[in-house]
């Protein structure tokens, strides 16, 4: 790990100020991706600004049909929250399968989304459920937030404060985890919202998380697994790596999508 200066921010505005003052500052939330990245010397920020002391960023609240989760809320808190389990069980279930118990005790929803790893689970939850990402400056809908591989719509000094999830009529996330890393080789979130069905896929896209229009219209017509026996037209480029070919991943999108629809009931 290269050297850096460390700041423990006491509030979001304190963190934003520290970020502005740093020549190349980086926010650390739970650190479960950032620290391994620093250890491999793949990043060398001048300053690390820790949100661990910003208690206002931590917590879960339910207001009518909206679940709001603070950016520093850990995966374990989301997974074990009775409120999330009752309002959006698919989201609690997704959180309970990220990494392992120790990673879930430190890793945060805000950190995961800001990092936008192409195989992370939370981007599929945000895009699939049509979440709104709240920052210290504005609100960004998930459709506009995830812009590419490890890229988001966040400005240089912008900090995520919370994520607002609308409650679906029903939803399910099915993931085919890489057995070693537990990252999604393919993960599919199917959500039946009042406005229609949304299907978001993580792990497969060469540019990160994406929606499958063909599946959405098919499920809007008939919400059943057999509706997905159609051609997935207009798919983006799919990832090709040692874990799987694009064809393998495309097949998994259908298989995981069907399982998700079936599990929705």
């Amino acid at each position, binding site marked *: *790990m*290269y*050297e*850096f*200066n*460390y700041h*423990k921010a006491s509030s979001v505005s304190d963190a934003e100020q520290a970020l502005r003052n740093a020549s190349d500052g980086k926010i*650390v939330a739970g*650190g*479960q991706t950032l*620290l*391994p990245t*620093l*250890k491999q010397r793949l990043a060398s920020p001048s300053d*690390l600004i*820790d949100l*661990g002391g910003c208690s206002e960023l931590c917590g879960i609240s339910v207001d009518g049909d909206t679940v709001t989760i603070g950016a520093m809320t850990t995966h*374990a808190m989301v997974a074990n929250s009775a409120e999330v389990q009752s309002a959006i069980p698919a989201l609690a279930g997704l959180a309970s399968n990220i*990494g*392992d*118990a*120790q*990673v879930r*005790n*430190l890793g945060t929803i805000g950190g995961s989304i800001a990092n936008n790893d192409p195989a992370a689970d939370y981007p599929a939850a945000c895009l699939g459920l049509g979440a709104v990402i709240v920052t210290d400056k504005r609100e960004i809908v998930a459709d506009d937030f995830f812009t590419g591989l490890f890229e988001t719509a966040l400005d240089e000094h912008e900090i995520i404060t919370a994520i607002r999830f609308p409650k679906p009529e029903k939803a399910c996330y099915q993931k085919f985890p890489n057995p070693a890393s*537990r990252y999604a080789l393919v993960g599919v979130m199917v959500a039946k919202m009042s406005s229609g069905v949304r299907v978001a896929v993580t792990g497969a896209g060469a540019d990160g998380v994406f929606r499958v229009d063909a599946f959405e219209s098919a499920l809007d017509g008939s919400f059943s697994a057999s509706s997905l026996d159609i051609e997935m037209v207009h798919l983006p480029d799919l990832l090709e790596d040692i874990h799987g070919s694009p064809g393998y991943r495309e097949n998994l999108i259908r298989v995981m999508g069907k399982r998700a629809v079936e599990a929705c009931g």
Partner: protein
Amino acid sequence: MTNVSMTVNGRPVSADVEPRTLLVEYLRENIGLTGTHVGCDTSQCGACVIHVDGKSVKSCTMLAVQAAGCEVTTIEGLANGDDLHPMQAAFRENHGLQCGFCTPGMVMSAVDLVTKNPDLTDTEIRDGLEGNICRCTGYHNIVKSVRAGSNAMKAAE
């Protein structure tokens, strides 16, 4: 250098370290508690699991500065004098280790796991120990140990 203070196994400790110092390095090299092991150093193997404010974490994937002011428990803090913690005793009685390198992390993860849920099935124990890797035992006796340790902890309450 930054002065980092925390409470480790009930004892206040303090050391001047660089901000990039990992919590596990702080514990082993500055505080001298070498019971917490570094296996993979990539947050895969779980040999470095400790408790920070009552939650199990991988101390190779946390900075010492992030734990400043926290209550930390390491494997050295579990036993009561010469009396092993029930989970430690269960690992010994059930042959839950061979070389023992992964054991400090296994025990710390297991204590957190069964404290949160004392009535786990064997499958749930295996899932709960997903973040801990053992290259000797094949896990069978580890699961047996955790089950026995869980029962002993309940009996001790």
